Protein backbone atom coordinates (compact mmCIF):
# COMPACT_ATOMS: atom_id res chain seq x y z
CA UNK A 1 0.00 0.00 0.00
CA UNK A 2 1.61 3.31 -1.05
CA UNK A 3 0.68 5.62 1.80
CA UNK A 4 2.59 8.54 0.29
CA UNK A 5 0.14 8.80 -2.58
CA UNK A 6 -2.51 11.41 -1.98
CA UNK A 7 -4.27 12.48 -5.17
CA UNK A 8 -7.67 14.13 -5.55
CA UNK A 9 -10.54 11.81 -4.87
CA UNK A 10 -8.54 9.58 -2.58
CA UNK A 11 -8.65 8.82 1.11
CA UNK A 12 -5.43 8.40 3.05
CA UNK A 13 -4.94 7.65 6.74
CA UNK A 14 -1.59 6.99 8.37
CA UNK A 15 -0.94 5.60 11.86
CA UNK A 16 -4.25 6.95 13.15
CA UNK A 17 -4.86 6.51 16.85
CA UNK A 18 -7.91 7.51 18.82
CA UNK A 19 -8.92 6.82 22.41
CA UNK A 20 -12.14 8.34 23.69
CA UNK A 21 -11.96 10.15 27.05
CA UNK A 22 -12.71 7.85 29.97
CA UNK A 23 -11.80 4.68 28.07
CA UNK A 24 -8.58 2.76 28.42
CA UNK A 25 -8.82 0.77 25.22
CA UNK A 26 -8.16 2.69 22.00
CA UNK A 27 -10.89 2.75 19.36
CA UNK A 28 -8.19 3.03 16.71
CA UNK A 29 -4.72 1.72 17.44
CA UNK A 30 -2.57 2.87 14.51
CA UNK A 31 -4.76 2.45 11.44
CA UNK A 32 -3.35 2.81 7.92
CA UNK A 33 -5.80 3.12 5.04
CA UNK A 34 -5.54 4.10 1.40
CA UNK A 35 -8.49 4.25 -0.97
CA UNK A 36 -7.55 5.19 -4.52
CA UNK A 37 -9.69 7.65 -6.45
CA UNK A 38 -12.74 6.09 -8.10
CA UNK A 39 -12.62 2.89 -6.03
CA UNK A 40 -15.23 1.45 -3.69
CA UNK A 41 -13.66 0.31 -0.44
CA UNK A 42 -15.56 -1.66 2.18
CA UNK A 43 -14.43 -1.35 5.77
CA UNK A 44 -15.47 -4.56 7.45
CA UNK A 45 -15.57 -5.28 11.13
CA UNK A 46 -17.68 -6.30 14.06
CA UNK A 47 -19.38 -3.83 16.42
CA UNK A 48 -16.72 -1.83 18.24
CA UNK A 49 -14.00 -2.57 15.67
CA UNK A 50 -13.45 1.17 15.08
CA UNK A 51 -15.28 1.61 11.77
CA UNK A 52 -17.53 4.48 12.83
CA UNK A 53 -14.69 6.24 14.67
CA UNK A 54 -12.60 6.18 11.50
CA UNK A 55 -15.51 7.56 9.44
CA UNK A 56 -16.11 10.32 12.02
CA UNK A 57 -12.45 11.32 11.74
CA UNK A 58 -12.59 11.28 7.93
CA UNK A 59 -15.71 13.47 8.01
CA UNK A 60 -14.12 15.98 10.46
CA UNK A 61 -16.71 15.20 13.18
CA UNK A 62 -14.05 13.85 15.56
CA UNK A 63 -10.34 14.57 15.81
CA UNK A 64 -7.70 11.84 15.94
CA UNK A 65 -5.19 11.75 18.81
CA UNK A 66 -2.28 11.15 16.43
CA UNK A 67 -1.54 10.21 12.85
CA UNK A 68 -2.46 12.04 9.65
CA UNK A 69 -5.63 11.84 7.61
CA UNK A 70 -6.39 13.41 4.26
CA UNK A 71 -9.47 13.26 2.10
CA UNK A 72 -9.49 14.38 -1.52
CA UNK A 73 -6.00 15.78 -0.97
CA UNK A 74 -6.92 17.93 2.06
CA UNK A 75 -5.76 17.32 5.61
CA UNK A 76 -8.77 16.88 7.92
CA UNK A 77 -7.14 18.90 10.72
CA UNK A 78 -5.54 21.73 8.71
CA UNK A 79 -8.24 22.11 6.03
CA UNK A 80 -11.51 20.81 7.48
CA UNK A 81 -13.61 23.26 5.44
CA UNK A 82 -12.10 22.02 2.17
CA UNK A 83 -12.61 18.42 3.25
CA UNK A 84 -16.28 19.14 4.00
CA UNK A 85 -16.69 20.80 0.62
CA UNK A 86 -15.54 17.67 -1.17
CA UNK A 87 -17.32 14.90 0.73
CA UNK A 88 -20.78 13.44 1.02
CA UNK A 89 -21.63 11.73 4.30
CA UNK A 90 -24.21 9.08 5.09
CA UNK A 91 -24.25 8.15 8.77
CA UNK A 92 -25.67 5.10 10.51
CA UNK A 93 -28.96 6.93 10.95
CA UNK A 94 -30.63 9.20 8.42
CA UNK A 95 -29.43 12.77 9.08
CA UNK A 96 -32.58 14.57 8.04
CA UNK A 97 -34.96 17.11 9.55
CA UNK A 98 -37.97 14.95 10.32
CA UNK A 99 -40.35 17.88 10.61
CA UNK A 100 -39.64 19.02 7.05
CA UNK A 101 -40.78 17.31 3.87
CA UNK A 102 -38.39 15.41 1.60
CA UNK A 103 -38.30 18.33 -0.83
CA UNK A 104 -37.77 20.89 1.94
CA UNK A 105 -34.86 18.84 3.32
CA UNK A 106 -33.11 18.70 -0.04
CA UNK A 107 -33.75 22.37 -0.77
CA UNK A 108 -32.49 23.37 2.69
CA UNK A 109 -29.18 21.56 2.31
CA UNK A 110 -28.81 22.69 -1.33
CA UNK A 111 -29.36 26.33 -0.32
CA UNK A 112 -26.84 25.98 2.52
CA UNK A 113 -24.07 24.92 0.15
CA UNK A 114 -24.68 28.04 -1.90
CA UNK A 115 -27.21 27.17 -4.60
CA UNK A 116 -29.75 29.83 -5.53
CA UNK A 117 -33.39 29.19 -4.68
CA UNK A 118 -34.16 28.14 -8.29
CA UNK A 119 -31.06 25.94 -8.57
CA UNK A 120 -31.83 24.30 -5.22
CA UNK A 121 -35.38 23.54 -6.34
CA UNK A 122 -34.10 22.03 -9.57
CA UNK A 123 -31.40 19.95 -7.84
CA UNK A 124 -33.93 18.71 -5.28
CA UNK A 125 -36.31 17.61 -8.04
CA UNK A 126 -33.47 15.83 -9.83
CA UNK A 127 -32.40 13.95 -6.68
CA UNK A 128 -35.98 13.07 -5.72
CA UNK A 129 -36.42 11.57 -9.17
CA UNK A 130 -33.12 9.71 -8.88
CA UNK A 131 -34.07 8.24 -5.51
CA UNK A 132 -37.52 7.18 -6.67
CA UNK A 133 -39.10 9.35 -3.99
CA UNK A 134 -40.65 11.89 -6.34
CA UNK A 135 -44.22 11.04 -5.40
CA UNK A 136 -43.41 11.52 -1.69
CA UNK A 137 -41.66 14.87 -2.16
CA UNK A 138 -44.29 16.81 -0.22
CA UNK A 139 -44.54 14.37 2.70
CA UNK A 140 -42.86 14.92 6.04
CA UNK A 141 -39.86 12.66 6.65
CA UNK A 142 -41.32 11.62 10.03
CA UNK A 143 -43.83 9.51 8.07
CA UNK A 144 -41.18 7.75 5.96
CA UNK A 145 -40.19 4.10 6.33
CA UNK A 146 -36.59 3.21 7.23
CA UNK A 147 -35.75 2.41 3.62
CA UNK A 148 -37.21 5.66 2.31
CA UNK A 149 -35.22 7.64 4.89
CA UNK A 150 -31.98 5.95 3.90
CA UNK A 151 -32.64 6.58 0.20
CA UNK A 152 -33.37 10.25 0.90
CA UNK A 153 -30.31 10.45 3.17
CA UNK A 154 -28.12 9.00 0.44
CA UNK A 155 -29.25 11.47 -2.22
CA UNK A 156 -29.00 14.32 0.30
CA UNK A 157 -25.32 13.48 0.66
CA UNK A 158 -24.99 13.76 -3.11
CA UNK A 159 -26.21 17.37 -3.32
CA UNK A 160 -22.65 18.67 -3.56
CA UNK A 161 -21.76 16.09 -6.26
CA UNK A 162 -18.96 14.94 -3.93
CA UNK A 163 -15.70 13.44 -5.14
CA UNK A 164 -15.64 11.24 -2.04
CA UNK A 165 -18.61 9.58 -0.38
CA UNK A 166 -18.31 8.18 3.15
CA UNK A 167 -21.08 5.80 4.10
CA UNK A 168 -21.44 4.27 7.55
CA UNK A 169 -23.42 1.02 7.62
CA UNK A 170 -25.88 2.08 4.94
CA UNK A 171 -28.17 -0.92 5.09
CA UNK A 172 -28.28 -1.85 8.77
CA UNK A 173 -31.85 -2.62 9.72
CA UNK A 174 -33.20 -2.56 6.16
CA UNK A 175 -35.13 -5.34 4.46
CA UNK A 176 -33.47 -7.15 1.51
CA UNK A 177 -35.33 -5.12 -1.14
CA UNK A 178 -34.44 -1.77 0.43
CA UNK A 179 -30.87 -3.03 0.85
CA UNK A 180 -30.56 -3.81 -2.84
CA UNK A 181 -31.96 -0.39 -3.76
CA UNK A 182 -29.21 1.21 -1.67
CA UNK A 183 -26.59 -1.05 -3.25
CA UNK A 184 -27.72 0.00 -6.72
CA UNK A 185 -27.42 3.67 -5.72
CA UNK A 186 -23.90 3.18 -4.34
CA UNK A 187 -22.84 1.26 -7.43
CA UNK A 188 -24.23 4.02 -9.64
CA UNK A 189 -22.19 6.60 -7.71
CA UNK A 190 -19.04 4.56 -8.19
CA UNK A 191 -19.78 4.15 -11.89
CA UNK A 192 -19.89 7.95 -12.14
CA UNK A 193 -16.39 8.22 -10.70
CA UNK A 194 -16.96 8.91 -6.99
CA UNK A 195 -14.62 7.34 -4.46
CA UNK A 196 -16.71 5.45 -1.91
CA UNK A 197 -15.74 4.24 1.54
CA UNK A 198 -18.48 2.24 3.19
CA UNK A 199 -18.48 0.47 6.50
CA UNK A 200 -20.50 -2.67 6.93
CA UNK A 201 -20.95 -5.74 9.09
CA UNK A 202 -22.35 -7.69 6.15
CA UNK A 203 -19.86 -9.78 4.17
CA UNK A 204 -22.36 -10.12 1.36
CA UNK A 205 -22.58 -6.32 1.08
CA UNK A 206 -18.83 -5.97 0.84
CA UNK A 207 -18.72 -8.73 -1.78
CA UNK A 208 -21.45 -7.06 -3.82
CA UNK A 209 -20.08 -3.52 -3.82
CA UNK A 210 -16.40 -3.33 -3.02
CA UNK A 211 -13.36 -3.18 -5.27
CA UNK A 212 -11.21 -3.34 -2.14
CA UNK A 213 -11.85 -4.61 1.36
CA UNK A 214 -10.19 -3.57 4.62
CA UNK A 215 -10.92 -5.64 7.71
CA UNK A 216 -10.68 -3.95 11.10
CA UNK A 217 -10.48 -5.78 14.41
CA UNK A 218 -10.22 -3.98 17.74
CA UNK A 219 -8.96 -0.79 16.14
CA UNK A 220 -6.33 -2.44 13.95
CA UNK A 221 -6.29 -3.35 10.25
CA UNK A 222 -5.95 -7.13 10.07
CA UNK A 223 -6.39 -7.66 6.31
CA UNK A 224 -6.64 -5.66 3.10
CA UNK A 225 -7.08 -6.61 -0.53
CA UNK A 226 -9.63 -7.20 -3.24
CA UNK A 227 -12.51 -9.55 -2.37
CA UNK A 228 -10.93 -12.29 -4.50
CA UNK A 229 -7.51 -11.76 -2.84
CA UNK A 230 -9.11 -12.20 0.56
CA UNK A 231 -11.13 -15.23 -0.52
CA UNK A 232 -7.92 -16.81 -1.83
CA UNK A 233 -6.49 -16.53 1.67
CA UNK A 234 -9.09 -19.00 2.86
CA UNK A 235 -8.40 -21.73 0.31
CA UNK A 236 -9.24 -23.15 -3.13
CA UNK A 237 -12.59 -22.27 -4.76
CA UNK A 238 -15.30 -24.81 -4.00
CA UNK A 239 -18.42 -25.60 -5.96
CA UNK A 240 -21.35 -26.46 -3.81
CA UNK A 241 -25.03 -27.07 -4.35
CA UNK A 242 -27.32 -25.48 -1.84
CA UNK A 243 -31.02 -25.06 -1.30
CA UNK A 244 -32.52 -21.58 -1.75
CA UNK A 245 -32.31 -19.49 1.39
CA UNK A 246 -35.17 -17.51 2.88
CA UNK A 247 -33.52 -14.40 1.47
CA UNK A 248 -33.72 -15.95 -2.03
CA UNK A 249 -37.42 -16.66 -1.52
CA UNK A 250 -38.09 -13.17 -0.14
CA UNK A 251 -36.26 -11.47 -3.02
CA UNK A 252 -37.98 -13.73 -5.56
CA UNK A 253 -41.42 -12.80 -4.23
CA UNK A 254 -40.62 -9.08 -4.13
CA UNK A 255 -38.45 -8.51 -7.18
CA UNK A 256 -38.38 -11.68 -9.19
CA UNK A 257 -34.61 -12.01 -8.59
CA UNK A 258 -32.59 -14.15 -6.20
CA UNK A 259 -29.62 -13.46 -3.98
CA UNK A 260 -27.63 -16.39 -5.31
Amino acid at each position, binding site marked *: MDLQANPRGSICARAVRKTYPGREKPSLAGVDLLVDAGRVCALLGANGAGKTTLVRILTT*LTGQDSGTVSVNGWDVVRDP*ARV*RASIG*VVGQYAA*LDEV*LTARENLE*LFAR*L*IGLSRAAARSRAAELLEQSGLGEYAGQRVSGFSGGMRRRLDLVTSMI*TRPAVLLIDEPTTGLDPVARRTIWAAVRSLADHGSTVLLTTQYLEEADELADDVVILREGTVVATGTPSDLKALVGEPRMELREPTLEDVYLHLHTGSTAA
Partner: protein
Amino acid sequence: MTTTAIQHTGSVLREAVILTGRSTRHWRARPVTFSVQLLFPVLIMLLMGGLLGGAIAGTTGDYIVFVVPGVLAFTVLSGIETTITAVTGDAAKTVTDRFRTLPISRGSVLLGRVFADMLTAAVELAVVSAAGLLLGWRPEGGIAAIALTYALLLWLRFGLLWAGVWIGLKAGTPEAATTTQLAIWPVAFLSTVFVDPRTMPSWLGAAAEWNPLSATASAARELLSGGELPGVTAVSDHAVLFALGWPLALTLVFVPLAIRAYRRLS
Protein backbone atom coordinates in the same frame (compact mmCIF):
# COMPACT_ATOMS: atom_id res chain seq x y z
CA MET B 1 -12.44 44.65 7.10
CA THR B 2 -10.83 42.76 4.19
CA THR B 3 -12.81 41.55 1.18
CA THR B 4 -12.44 37.95 2.39
CA ALA B 5 -13.76 38.83 5.83
CA ILE B 6 -16.73 40.67 4.30
CA GLN B 7 -17.47 37.69 2.05
CA HIS B 8 -17.21 35.35 5.06
CA THR B 9 -19.57 37.51 7.12
CA GLY B 10 -21.96 37.67 4.16
CA SER B 11 -21.99 33.90 3.78
CA VAL B 12 -22.48 33.36 7.54
CA LEU B 13 -25.49 35.72 7.47
CA ARG B 14 -26.88 34.04 4.36
CA GLU B 15 -26.56 30.59 5.94
CA ALA B 16 -28.10 31.85 9.18
CA VAL B 17 -31.08 33.30 7.33
CA ILE B 18 -31.62 29.99 5.49
CA LEU B 19 -31.51 28.14 8.82
CA THR B 20 -33.94 30.67 10.29
CA GLY B 21 -36.34 29.57 7.56
CA ARG B 22 -35.94 25.99 8.79
CA SER B 23 -37.04 26.99 12.29
CA THR B 24 -40.01 29.01 11.07
CA ARG B 25 -41.17 25.96 9.10
CA HIS B 26 -41.15 24.08 12.42
CA TRP B 27 -43.67 26.63 13.79
CA ARG B 28 -45.95 25.88 10.87
CA ALA B 29 -45.65 22.17 11.57
CA ARG B 30 -46.42 22.60 15.29
CA PRO B 31 -49.11 25.30 15.54
CA VAL B 32 -50.43 24.21 18.95
CA THR B 33 -46.99 24.28 20.61
CA PHE B 34 -46.28 27.66 19.08
CA SER B 35 -49.63 29.09 20.21
CA VAL B 36 -49.11 27.88 23.79
CA GLN B 37 -45.66 29.48 23.79
CA LEU B 38 -47.19 32.81 22.66
CA LEU B 39 -50.04 32.77 25.16
CA PHE B 40 -48.12 31.56 28.23
CA PRO B 41 -46.91 35.05 29.35
CA VAL B 42 -50.46 36.38 28.90
CA LEU B 43 -51.71 33.62 31.18
CA ILE B 44 -49.08 34.57 33.79
CA MET B 45 -50.17 38.22 33.53
CA LEU B 46 -53.82 37.29 34.04
CA LEU B 47 -53.01 35.00 36.97
CA MET B 48 -50.79 37.52 38.72
CA GLY B 49 -53.24 40.37 38.07
CA GLY B 50 -56.34 38.41 39.04
CA LEU B 51 -54.99 36.54 42.07
CA LEU B 52 -52.40 38.91 43.54
CA GLY B 53 -52.97 42.29 41.86
CA GLY B 54 -55.44 43.58 44.47
CA ALA B 55 -53.23 42.51 47.37
CA ILE B 56 -50.08 44.02 45.86
CA ALA B 57 -51.35 47.28 44.35
CA GLY B 58 -54.78 47.87 45.86
CA THR B 59 -56.69 47.15 42.67
CA THR B 60 -56.22 44.72 39.79
CA GLY B 61 -56.33 47.63 37.32
CA ASP B 62 -53.47 49.48 39.06
CA TYR B 63 -51.44 46.29 39.23
CA ILE B 64 -51.92 45.57 35.52
CA VAL B 65 -50.55 49.03 34.70
CA PHE B 66 -47.55 48.27 36.95
CA VAL B 67 -46.95 44.71 35.83
CA VAL B 68 -47.25 44.89 32.01
CA PRO B 69 -43.68 46.22 31.51
CA GLY B 70 -42.49 43.55 33.96
CA VAL B 71 -44.35 40.81 32.10
CA LEU B 72 -42.76 42.03 28.86
CA ALA B 73 -39.35 41.44 30.51
CA PHE B 74 -40.56 38.08 31.88
CA THR B 75 -41.63 37.13 28.33
CA VAL B 76 -38.10 37.80 27.15
CA LEU B 77 -36.76 35.43 29.81
CA SER B 78 -39.33 32.65 29.60
CA GLY B 79 -38.90 32.34 25.81
CA ILE B 80 -35.42 30.90 26.22
CA GLU B 81 -36.99 27.71 27.58
CA THR B 82 -37.98 27.00 23.98
CA THR B 83 -34.46 27.76 22.82
CA ILE B 84 -32.93 25.38 25.37
CA THR B 85 -35.34 22.59 24.41
CA ALA B 86 -34.83 23.10 20.66
CA VAL B 87 -31.03 23.26 20.90
CA THR B 88 -30.83 20.17 23.14
CA GLY B 89 -33.17 18.28 20.82
CA ASP B 90 -31.25 19.27 17.70
CA ALA B 91 -27.86 18.43 19.23
CA ALA B 92 -29.10 14.91 20.00
CA LYS B 93 -30.32 14.37 16.43
CA THR B 94 -28.29 13.13 13.53
CA VAL B 95 -29.29 16.16 11.45
CA THR B 96 -26.71 18.10 13.47
CA ASP B 97 -24.03 15.78 12.08
CA ARG B 98 -25.25 16.72 8.61
CA PHE B 99 -24.84 20.43 9.40
CA ARG B 100 -21.39 19.80 10.88
CA THR B 101 -20.16 17.99 7.77
CA LEU B 102 -21.38 20.65 5.36
CA PRO B 103 -18.99 23.35 4.12
CA ILE B 104 -20.74 26.03 6.19
CA SER B 105 -19.73 28.10 9.19
CA ARG B 106 -20.26 26.41 12.57
CA GLY B 107 -21.52 29.76 13.89
CA SER B 108 -24.26 30.07 11.27
CA VAL B 109 -26.18 27.09 12.68
CA LEU B 110 -26.35 28.77 16.08
CA LEU B 111 -27.00 32.20 14.60
CA GLY B 112 -29.92 30.76 12.59
CA ARG B 113 -31.44 29.48 15.84
CA VAL B 114 -30.93 32.90 17.47
CA PHE B 115 -32.49 34.78 14.52
CA ALA B 116 -35.54 32.48 14.58
CA ASP B 117 -35.97 32.94 18.32
CA MET B 118 -35.63 36.71 17.98
CA LEU B 119 -38.53 36.61 15.51
CA THR B 120 -40.49 34.54 18.03
CA ALA B 121 -39.66 37.11 20.73
CA ALA B 122 -41.02 39.94 18.59
CA VAL B 123 -44.30 38.07 18.11
CA GLU B 124 -44.48 37.18 21.84
CA LEU B 125 -43.95 40.83 22.84
CA ALA B 126 -46.64 41.95 20.39
CA VAL B 127 -49.11 39.44 21.88
CA VAL B 128 -48.38 40.47 25.50
CA SER B 129 -48.61 44.17 24.57
CA ALA B 130 -51.97 43.61 22.84
CA ALA B 131 -53.26 41.73 25.88
CA GLY B 132 -52.06 44.56 28.15
CA LEU B 133 -53.84 47.14 26.00
CA LEU B 134 -57.05 45.10 26.20
CA LEU B 135 -56.73 45.06 30.02
CA GLY B 136 -56.38 48.84 30.24
CA TRP B 137 -52.60 49.42 30.15
CA ARG B 138 -51.56 52.49 28.13
CA PRO B 139 -47.91 53.35 27.37
CA GLU B 140 -47.28 57.05 28.00
CA GLY B 141 -43.69 57.73 27.04
CA GLY B 142 -44.08 58.67 23.37
CA ILE B 143 -43.05 56.86 20.20
CA ALA B 144 -39.28 57.14 20.73
CA ALA B 145 -39.53 55.82 24.29
CA ILE B 146 -41.75 52.93 23.18
CA ALA B 147 -39.33 52.04 20.36
CA LEU B 148 -36.39 52.16 22.78
CA THR B 149 -38.28 49.95 25.25
CA TYR B 150 -38.89 47.20 22.70
CA ALA B 151 -35.32 47.51 21.43
CA LEU B 152 -34.04 47.00 24.99
CA LEU B 153 -36.35 44.02 25.48
CA LEU B 154 -35.11 42.39 22.27
CA TRP B 155 -31.51 43.23 23.20
CA LEU B 156 -31.94 41.36 26.49
CA ARG B 157 -33.48 38.42 24.63
CA PHE B 158 -30.45 38.37 22.30
CA GLY B 159 -28.06 38.07 25.26
CA LEU B 160 -30.23 35.50 27.04
CA LEU B 161 -30.60 33.44 23.85
CA TRP B 162 -26.85 32.84 23.69
CA ALA B 163 -26.97 31.70 27.31
CA GLY B 164 -29.89 29.43 26.33
CA VAL B 165 -27.96 28.04 23.34
CA TRP B 166 -24.99 27.26 25.59
CA ILE B 167 -27.18 25.62 28.25
CA GLY B 168 -28.99 23.62 25.54
CA LEU B 169 -25.70 22.35 24.10
CA LYS B 170 -24.26 21.45 27.50
CA ALA B 171 -27.47 19.87 28.84
CA GLY B 172 -26.99 16.74 26.74
CA THR B 173 -30.43 15.24 27.27
CA PRO B 174 -33.98 16.66 27.20
CA GLU B 175 -34.36 15.63 30.88
CA ALA B 176 -31.32 17.67 31.90
CA ALA B 177 -32.59 20.59 29.81
CA THR B 178 -35.90 20.50 31.69
CA THR B 179 -34.02 20.71 34.99
CA THR B 180 -32.10 23.80 33.89
CA GLN B 181 -35.36 25.42 32.79
CA LEU B 182 -36.58 25.31 36.41
CA ALA B 183 -33.98 27.98 37.22
CA ILE B 184 -35.95 30.46 35.16
CA TRP B 185 -38.65 30.84 37.84
CA PRO B 186 -36.42 31.89 40.74
CA VAL B 187 -34.65 34.34 38.39
CA ALA B 188 -38.04 35.82 37.41
CA PHE B 189 -39.34 36.14 40.98
CA LEU B 190 -36.09 37.45 42.47
CA SER B 191 -36.42 40.58 40.35
CA THR B 192 -38.53 43.71 40.02
CA VAL B 193 -40.72 42.10 37.35
CA PHE B 194 -43.77 41.40 39.51
CA VAL B 195 -43.15 43.41 42.71
CA ASP B 196 -41.82 46.88 43.59
CA PRO B 197 -38.39 46.32 45.25
CA ARG B 198 -39.17 49.01 47.86
CA THR B 199 -41.70 46.63 49.41
CA MET B 200 -39.00 43.94 49.92
CA PRO B 201 -36.50 43.70 52.81
CA SER B 202 -33.70 46.11 51.83
CA TRP B 203 -31.09 43.41 51.15
CA LEU B 204 -33.55 41.43 49.02
CA GLY B 205 -34.65 44.56 47.13
CA ALA B 206 -31.00 45.34 46.35
CA ALA B 207 -30.39 41.76 45.17
CA ALA B 208 -33.51 41.93 43.00
CA GLU B 209 -32.39 45.18 41.38
CA TRP B 210 -29.02 43.69 40.41
CA ASN B 211 -30.82 40.94 38.47
CA PRO B 212 -30.29 41.62 34.72
CA LEU B 213 -34.00 41.06 34.18
CA SER B 214 -34.79 43.88 36.65
CA ALA B 215 -32.71 46.43 34.77
CA THR B 216 -34.76 45.86 31.60
CA ALA B 217 -38.05 45.67 33.53
CA SER B 218 -37.26 48.93 35.37
CA ALA B 219 -36.11 50.63 32.15
CA ALA B 220 -39.32 49.53 30.41
CA ARG B 221 -41.40 50.76 33.36
CA GLU B 222 -39.68 54.15 33.30
CA LEU B 223 -39.79 54.62 29.55
CA LEU B 224 -43.40 53.50 29.20
CA SER B 225 -44.63 55.59 32.14
CA GLY B 226 -42.80 58.71 31.00
CA GLY B 227 -41.12 59.40 34.35
CA GLU B 228 -38.45 58.17 36.75
CA LEU B 229 -39.42 55.50 39.25
CA PRO B 230 -37.62 55.28 42.58
CA GLY B 231 -35.81 52.12 43.59
CA VAL B 232 -33.47 51.00 46.35
CA THR B 233 -30.05 51.02 44.65
CA ALA B 234 -28.10 52.94 42.01
CA VAL B 235 -29.23 50.37 39.43
CA SER B 236 -32.72 51.88 39.38
CA ASP B 237 -31.23 55.35 38.83
CA HIS B 238 -29.48 54.14 35.70
CA ALA B 239 -31.89 51.42 34.56
CA VAL B 240 -31.48 52.13 30.82
CA LEU B 241 -27.71 52.00 31.11
CA PHE B 242 -27.88 48.66 32.92
CA ALA B 243 -30.46 47.40 30.41
CA LEU B 244 -27.85 48.06 27.72
CA GLY B 245 -24.92 46.69 29.72
CA TRP B 246 -26.24 43.40 31.07
CA PRO B 247 -27.19 41.92 27.65
CA LEU B 248 -23.84 43.07 26.26
CA ALA B 249 -22.07 41.19 29.05
CA LEU B 250 -24.23 38.10 28.47
CA THR B 251 -23.46 38.21 24.75
CA LEU B 252 -19.73 38.63 25.27
CA VAL B 253 -19.62 35.71 27.70
CA PHE B 254 -21.98 33.24 26.06
CA VAL B 255 -21.30 33.64 22.31
CA PRO B 256 -17.78 32.16 22.58
CA LEU B 257 -18.95 29.55 25.08
CA ALA B 258 -21.82 28.48 22.79
CA ILE B 259 -19.63 28.28 19.69
CA ARG B 260 -17.00 26.27 21.59
CA ALA B 261 -19.65 23.89 22.95
CA TYR B 262 -21.04 23.39 19.42
CA ARG B 263 -17.58 22.64 18.04
CA ARG B 264 -17.01 20.11 20.81
CA LEU B 265 -20.22 18.17 20.28
CA SER B 266 -19.34 14.50 20.16
